[in-house]
């Protein structure tokens, strides 16, 4: 959600969130860049592996942590003893804990999260059918919010530099603040109101008869509007910070033409930070996607997992969904970090993940 984004933003402005920064390794020779990449990829792959192990652990204990007798809780209060026993057997709860865990891990390694109670199909299959829908709107939103957010933030940042055009500053602050603070699901509801109910331009919910692209417009809009505002705010602030840096003073001292000054000397430094924060925004966006999907009946991971919890108590689905959503957000972060590494090799040196 937009607010958790701004929280991380305030971390970065105090210089804590940005990797590399100004304390990058001093003597990193060009020839060692390949080595830096190797170490970076190696470290991130290890991190990825550790995260996957933790995810397996978490999905395993979801069922174990249900208070009371998990099988009875899952089967429901009006279930017969044989139904409860069936659930117990399906989830492997009738065996000793180490055996349960061993079987679970073996199953996961074979892509087996159990059979969905509701659909009577392999849980992973249901979840993997839904995943592309979520990835599609999340990715489309990423492109949209990065492009518009960066463009607006940079333009406003340059125009208002050194306290020029104070009115634009105010208009931008209030406008972007307003948009960033409207929750994505409220925006989704309002967008349906305007574009589906009043104007009848777009479908209010996913329906195969309308074409995928048309159905996707409103969900993507609902997801990206707030992010555009957040990215624009972050970028604008970052432009102000970068313009104050010594190297920008050096460039001004070289009397470079405005285009070179901003496009070549300022932009790369702004984009690095904006991208770093976009990784965090993307994670938050994935979260709001799960909610927004429900508004539009978008057949993605959010709809599947929310249904699995609130309607069917379908734990194999929940486990598979948590695992897949977690993996997707890990991969998103991973790819953003790789793009960052390409844009700014200094970030390869940090010790995260």
């Amino acid at each position, binding site marked *: *959600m937009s*607010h*958790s984004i*701004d*929280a991380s933003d*305030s971390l970065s402005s*105090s210089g*804590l969130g940005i990797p590399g920064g*100004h304390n*990058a390794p*001093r*003597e990193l020779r*060009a020839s060692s860049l390949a080595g830096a990449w190797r170490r970076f990829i190696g470290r991130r792959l290890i991190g990825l592996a*550790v995260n996957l192990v933790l995810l397996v652990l978490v999905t395993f204990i*979801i069922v174990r942590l249900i208070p009371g007798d998990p099988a009875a*809780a899952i089967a429901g209060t009006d279930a017969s003893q044989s139904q409860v026993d069936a659930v117990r057997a399906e989830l492997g709860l009738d065996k000793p804990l180490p055996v349960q865990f061993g079987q679970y891990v073996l199953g996961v390694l074979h892509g087996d999260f159990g059979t969905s109670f509701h659909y009577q199909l392999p849980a992973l299959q249901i979840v993997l059918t839904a995943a592309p829908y979520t990835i599609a709107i999340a990715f489309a939103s990423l492109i949209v919010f990065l492009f518009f957010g960066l463009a607006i933030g940079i333009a406003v940042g340059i125009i208002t530099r*050194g*306290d020029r055009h104070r009115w634009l500053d105010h208009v931008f*602050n209030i406008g972007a*603040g*307003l948009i960033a*603070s*409207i*929750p994505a*699901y*409220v925006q989704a*509801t309002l967008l*349906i*109101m305007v574009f589906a109910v009043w104007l009848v331009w777009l479908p*209010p919910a996913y329906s195969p008869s309308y074409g995928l692209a048309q159905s996707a417009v409103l969900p993507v809009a609902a997801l990206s509007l707030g992010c555009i505002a957040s990215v624009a705010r972050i970028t604008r602030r970052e432009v102000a910070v970068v313009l104050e*840096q*010594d190297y*920008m003073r*050096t*460039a001004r*001292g*070289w*009397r*470079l033409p405005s285009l*070179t000054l901003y496009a*070549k*000397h300022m932009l790369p430094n702004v984009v*690095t930070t904006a991208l770093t924060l976009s990784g965090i925004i993307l994670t*938050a966006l*994935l*979260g*709001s996607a799960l*909610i927004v999907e429900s*508004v539009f009946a978008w057949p993605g991971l959010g709809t599947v*997992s*929310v249904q699995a*919890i*609130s309607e069917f108590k379908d734990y194999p689905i929940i486990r598979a969904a948590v695992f897949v*959503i*977690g993996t997707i*957000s890990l991969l998103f972060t991973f790819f953003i970090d790789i793009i960052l590494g390409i*844009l*700014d*090799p200094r970030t390869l040196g940090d010790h*995260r993940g």
Partner: protein
Amino acid sequence: MASLFTRPRAAARRRTASPLLYLGYGMLAVLVLTAIIAPIFLDHAATTLTSTANSGPTHAHPMGTDSLGRDMLARVLVATRETMLAAVFSTAIAAVLGIGLGIAAWLAARRVREVILRLIEFWVSYPTLLVAIIVAAILGRGLAPAVFAIGLANAGGFARLTANLAAGISTREFVVTARLMGVPSGRIATRHIVPNMAEPQLILIAQAFAGALVELSGLSFIGLGAQSPSFDWGALLNEGASKIYTNPILIVGPSIALVFASLAALFVGDGLAAAANPRTNLRRARMLHHSGTELAPLTPDTLLSVDHLTVRHDDSGRELVSDVSLSIRRGEVLGIVGESGSGKSVTASVVSKLLAEGLTATAARAELSGADLLGRVSGRELARRVAMVYQDPGTALNPALTLGNQLSDVLSRALGSTRRAARQNLLERFRDVLLTDPEGRMRQYPHQLSGGMKQRAMIASAMSTRAELLVADEPTTALDVTVQREVLTLIKRMNATMGTSVLFISHDLGVVRALCDRVLVMRDGRIVEAIDDVAHMTPEGVVHPYTRQLLEATPIVTMPGRDIEGAAR
């Protein structure tokens, strides 16, 4: 140390709370009052079933009624309590858990700390809603599990902020001192660490509260949060959204409430952040003529002449430079010495026409090689005439561009060089300043070079345009002694072989003595002494007591080759 762009911070930074902060507080107050009062008076209207079901906006029901005939406005107002309380509890859980864990990480042994920090990273790298789904899957649907889930999810952010802040604070002097004095860690944490992170934590709390409110309502909206008969804004919005075709007015109330609350939190969070890091609001720098002073005509060999220069800070009206006059002949090295705040760097910034924002310079004359610095001078002309070397080579070069890439920009600007010509020129200058492996250096990023190498590259760049004047603002201050000497030698060589005049700013009289032909001593914005015969200056020979103090405090630095080069000229 002062540099060209130093601005008088204390005077420029005003610590004013923005009106938006007060607006945010006001909106929060409205919410709190509503949360307290509304359930007392409106509970009946909000929960009693009536026969006017599914009403649109009417006088009696301005926001309509739901399918059971309950007044929507009353329901929205009453729901304020539930929504706010849930967000408060959730934020409290997040803050207590997170700050506790962050402190624990800091107090723990190194190994344990590493593990905890990794866990925190794992924690914050997943979407909040994923954690909520996990908790809802374990504890079932309902507002209490949702509050716990969102609290748990947001605790990661607090833990990370706390760990980062603690790491920063624990290296500060007072904590180090306390440790040395044997104060136990727990006591250091409560006495020194926690109080010093109050401000950023407060900002994060405001943001986390807004986030929790939005996320909790989001969970209710998709049916994982508040369960009937209890209701919060998210649940009400869900009801409204399901009737969006038949009775669209129902979404208005909850939407406004949610936006109102998150705006309030945004204003407070932004306002607090702005008060913690006030932005300077500065007007563009101005450089003006002042008339009425008779000026002597310039001699032909004068490169730079500045007469009766005064620089004022716009806001405070303080004079940073008062009535300073100086001139540099072609091929001459002029030093300006003074402690930080003496106005020497501001003077240099006028000469290089890079005056900082918020300052106004007036002078009777400021001419560089026939160009009026107080008027408009084309960028290309300035780039050709003046080159600069700055104090900190570590920050003066663009970290995102290779040396070759950024240093050739100035050549295409100043000389209109092609890429190839610029590259060739730079390679030769790199050899002149004795940079090893010049071709390799061209392809390297600044962070791959040491400070001394970067400063040499800066000098190479200054040489490459064959500028008439080099403004060097404390170019050796950030370097260690051996590198200092190399840099001075390079500047001296540039002066001797290319005839470049130099304006050399330093606080170090010893360095200046080794390099300069003439020296001006500045103090409090004024020139207190001009020394024409630098080689033979002695504490007895100078007039002003301040200069004598400086001189007596300076060890004598000699530079190999000075006499030879001086004699050759």
